[in-house]
């Protein structure tokens, strides 16, 4: 953190007197460059824009010949031949952006609703599972992390299994869970939870161990109970670690839910939609690309909402913590 000397104008007279008497200089951090969520989104949009420009530039240089024309070719009809055509940038691999966005509006099936509507419906199904999974997973992670932080014996005994659990591909266990539970989207939620709990467990454990050992000794000297130490020192210190984990878990939950839908054959989530468009990719690539864009947008929204909660919580916690 950069620090600067506090300009005299900001110090009240009494404080100044004290400062002068003590000869100490008060330092405050430079004005916090806390970005509002608005600017974050703006920056993010800019990066996307640059991405789009680069994409089309690649098409311009390496793609398949383009045709610029009005619908019937009456007004103008130009064809551009990219100078260095590469197969990688062909329309089949990298559709034009307008084709991708167009695919969102066009019906997904003959006479059906537009693709966006189909995706939105599927997203609701998947996100339900993802959010429930996220809640279950992070709760479990918080509990496990707290238990491990207090009982080293349990930590040593169980953490290897926690790690091992994450080396099993979810694709391998998803069908089992679906068959055992016969529970439809609940099994998807559980699989999402299965992926979520790991980063939360590990980071909670780390965060709870992060306070200065002397801070714990101080609490000991106040004869504070473990529980009090946990609430007054360990959890507040762990908060930044926990939120880092929650951000990871938010994106993992979405991906986890989608992947869990694939082998479980659940019919109406994003997983199934992706599976369908996968098989159509060879003939209609823009659909899959459009789906990818849409899914990443959904995942991002979830991620952003975690950041929002973090901002609100840290702000209010300070306030709450300092009322009394």
């Amino acid at each position, binding site marked *: 953190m950069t620090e600067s000397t506090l300009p005299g104008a900001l110090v*009240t007279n009494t404080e100044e007197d*004290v400062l002068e008497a003590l000869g*100490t200089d008060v*330092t405050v951090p430079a004005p916090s460059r806390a970005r509002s969520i608005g600017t974050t989104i703006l920056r993010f949009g800019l990066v996307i824009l640059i991405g789009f420009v680069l994409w089309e530039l690649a098409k311009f240089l390496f793609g398949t010949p383009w045709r610029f024309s009005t619908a019937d070719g009456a007004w103008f009809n130009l064809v551009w031949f990219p100078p260095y055509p590469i197969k990688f940038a062909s329309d089949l691999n990298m559709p034009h952006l307008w084709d991708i966005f167009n695919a969102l509006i066009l019906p997904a099936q003959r006479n059906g609703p537009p693709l966006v509507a189909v995706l939105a419906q599927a997203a609701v199904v998947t996100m339900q599972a993802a959010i429930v999974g996220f809640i279950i997973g992070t709760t479990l992670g918080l509990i496990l992390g707290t238990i491990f932080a207090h009982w080293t014996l349990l930590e040593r005994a169980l953490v290897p299994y926690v790690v091992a659990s994450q080396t099993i591909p979810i694709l391998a266990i998803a069908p089992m869970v679906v068959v055992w539970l016969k529970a439809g989207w609940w099994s998807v939620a559980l699989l999402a939870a299965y992926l979520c709990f790991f980063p939360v467990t590990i980071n909670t454990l780390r965060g709870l161990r992060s306070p200065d050992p*002397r801070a714990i000794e101080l609490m*000991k000297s*106040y004869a504070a109970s473990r529980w009090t130490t946990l609430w*007054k020192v360990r959890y507040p210190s762990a908060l930044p670690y926990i939120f880092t984990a929650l951000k990871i878990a938010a994106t993992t939950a979405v991906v986890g839910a989608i992947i869990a839908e694939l082998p479980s054959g659940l019919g109406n989530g994003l997983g199934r939609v992706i599976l369908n468009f996968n098989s159509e990719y060879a003939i209609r690539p823009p659909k899959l690309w459009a789906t990818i864009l849409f899914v990443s947008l959904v995942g991002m929204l979830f991620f952003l909402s975690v950041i929002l909660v973090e901002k609100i919580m840290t702000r209010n916690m300070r306030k709450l913590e300092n009322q009394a």
Partner: protein
Amino acid sequence: MAVVSISRVNKIFGKPGANQTIALQDIDLEIEQGEFISLIGPSGCGKSTLLRIIGDLISPTNGTVQVNGKPAPQARVDRDYGIVFQAPVLFDWRTVERNVQLPLEIMGKSAEERTRRANQMLELVELNGFQKHYPYQLSGGMQQRVSIARALSFHPQLLLMDEPFGALDEITRERLNAELLDIWSRTKTTIVFVTHSIPEAVFLSTRVVVMSARPGRITEIIPIDLPQPRVFETRESPRYYELITQVREALRGSEGMKV
């Protein structure tokens, strides 16, 4: 009655057999009510370990420690002592005021009483007006004052200080020394003070306990007969220099002429 009474305390780190370290050997020490005791010695002499044993942050391998006539663990549960470390160890999500209130909060004191006592303590350490500041807005010396205010907030009879001014510059250190003496005379708290600095030990203490390293032992206890209250001029008196020399020689003796 002695506030602290240590008899035949040994502290051995490590398991029997493989590379054991004898941190403390045969420590006997009585500290009376209202004394200001400094523990001084080369690094590794176990002075911090001794302080931690008095505060029941670690337990001795054998021997007994009585605080206020009770075993040290009981004294800890009864909140008989406050601790100040070399680092202020303030909680950066709490304001100055709420940092000072933390022990009172744990003891379940009412909000009014907490505020009253915190204000009183901040006044004592000359930080009135900084109640709503966050620790990062204060200089190192001010942070250390907050941590002293916190240690004293629940009026412990015994204040344990582990090189509290070790990380501060000389000028701030001398000022805080004077302030600490002022607090000491006003609160009548018994203080056990660990330091590396001979002048600091002599200026502050009623007795200086000189320790030697490997194994950590008390080699000499030097009473400091400088007149109270100690003021700026104390540092210029011939007796002050004599005592500094005496402590230095005791330290040299304890190191076996190695210094």
